[in-house]
């Protein structure tokens, strides 16, 4: 559905996006993830045909966005970040305009407007001037706009930005529902959003694509696995007991404030070691050293940690344009 090949956007002194290549297949919901200023919006604008790429090519539904721009744009619904709308128009008037602009045939236009009003749950404000709507409603009107021509591909730039928690939940639910009939690429800097709605994520930092894969694959990319142990005993002695075990990469010990006899050990295993058996041996060693093991918590690599690792590694390179 989207084929991006070596896409670069050069603003003269700043390279906003460099050599980004990826595919989005039909029916996927893909998260486009990155910190603020990473090049998310610039990339999406190039995909939507609002900006031209300095080099590289983008194909939407088989049409090149540069050479067959109209055909490519007819296949996508794009929702820009700030949800810009004509505030003087009523919601229904606006959507009718957008439907006509997107070449929805005259006799189907009314039905298309009604359908998009319903899909985005804005039927109740159809006759309200857009200028009087709240941020949440405007965001949904922009979504209805993206949906009005029923395009196979939706490109949503931070669809939940500026919404309150309830609205965020609603929009995510809506995106998941739309994902059943549309291919969706949505950008965000909020990780739970990707975990909540996306099957796959692209991670961009400093204008480069630094990772790509399913959520599980990305989590697995975090090198080394950590286990947190709460043990009663002497911190130094306990740490020494496990530090030399095979498969252990690092041990960090700290005592709890107010309870100096309770030690928190963070055990990090080597990436190539069998984490489970290392853990078993570590617990046995702790018991042998006189420690009272109270709690063992395997720390699942959160997407946050993966994200931080992936994007921070790229950060220094961001300035060397």
């Amino acid at each position: 559905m989207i084929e991006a090949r070596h896409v670069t956007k050069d603003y003269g002194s700043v390279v906003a996006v460099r050599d980004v290549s990826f595919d989005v297949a039909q029916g996927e919901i893909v998260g486009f993830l990155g910190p603020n200023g990473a090049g998310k919006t610039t990339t999406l604008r190039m995909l939507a045909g609002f900006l031209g790429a300095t080099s590289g090519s983008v194909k939407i539904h088989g049409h090149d966005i540069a050479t067959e721009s109209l055909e490519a744009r007819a296949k996508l619904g794009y929702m820009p970040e700030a949800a810009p709308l004509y505030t003087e128009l009523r919601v229904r008037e606006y959507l009718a305009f957008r439907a006509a602009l997107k070449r929805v045939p005259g006799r189907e236009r009314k039905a298309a407007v009604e359908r998009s009003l319903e899909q985005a749950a804005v039927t109740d404000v159809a006759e309200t001037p857009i200028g009087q709507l709240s941020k949440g409603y405007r965001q949904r009107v922009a979504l209805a706009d993206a949906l009005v021509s029923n395009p196979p591909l939706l490109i949503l730039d931070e669809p939940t930005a500026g919404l309150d928690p309830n609205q965020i939940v609603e929009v995510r639910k809506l995106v998941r529902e739309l994902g059943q009939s549309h291919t969706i690429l949505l950008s965000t800097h909020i990780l739970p959003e990707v975990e909540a709605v996306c099957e796959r994520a692209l991670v961009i930092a400093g204008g480069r694509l630094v990772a790509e894969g399913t959520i599980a694959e990305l989590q697995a990319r975090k090198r080394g696995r950590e286990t947190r142990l709460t043990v009663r005993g002497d911190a130094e002695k306990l740490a020494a007991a496990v530090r030399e075990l095979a498969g252990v990469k690092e041990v960090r010990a700290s005592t709890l404030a107010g309870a100096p006899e309770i030690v928190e050990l963070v055990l990090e295993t080597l990436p190539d070691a069998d984490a489970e058996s290392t853990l078993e041996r570590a617990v046995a060693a702790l018991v042998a050293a006189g420690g009272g093991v109270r709690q063992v918590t395997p720390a699942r690599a959160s997407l946050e940690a993966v994200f931080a690792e992936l994007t921070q590694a790229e950060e220094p390179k961001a300035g060397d344009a």
Partner: protein
Amino acid sequence: MSGFAAVYRREMLSLWVTPLAWVLLVVFLLLQGTIFYSIVVHFTSLADLAVETGPVEAYFGQESVFLLMTLLLVCPALTMRTFAEERRSGTIETLLTAPVTPAGIVLGKYLAVLTTYCAMWAPTVLYVVVLRKTGSIDWHTVGSSYLGLFGVGAAYLALGTLMSSMSKSQLIALLLAIFAEFGLFVLGVGEYVFEPGLLHDVCAHLSIGSQMEEMSRGIVDLRRIVFDGSIAVTSLFVTSRVVDSWRWG
């Protein structure tokens, strides 16, 4: 040309549901009414003179400096928001990612302001209808006068549309348009400044004032129409190139 009809309808709707068009219409008609009234009063005081011209000719022609002054205010005000507002509010992003061509957008917007311009002039036909009660009216000169006004408006509005694409600020777009249109007007004044010769002829040819003066007497010179048309076409062409260039910004 794709998207032209939708852009045109949206532009008309936006113009007429906001106060801008109505405020301009009221101010415009007040000014025109005052000018026309004073011209008529002036002519009634010349009762016994066998003058060649009547109030209609005076209104559109000899006294057209007033008329052109109001155009210098009304036309830039009509066009200032066309592109500047789209870029300021960000709606240009949704517009340019729809399957529309720059030419379609530019023409849709331009024809909407041109239609509005014509709608503003429409009530002034009543002046002539009222005058008919007092004497005979040469409808040919009325027709050619309105043709002249249409030509001037077409050129001014195209220039204003171009200026609106130059800035994200409506105020700057307004000022740029006033400068450009006033510049065109001042060029025509050169006709009275320079000695007969090349400069004089060039200025006379470019003069919007002389154009209205001729047309108010029923003289339709094709060169005048071509001049207005070429300003309009050139401005609109450049505007569509400017719109296209935003992709590379």
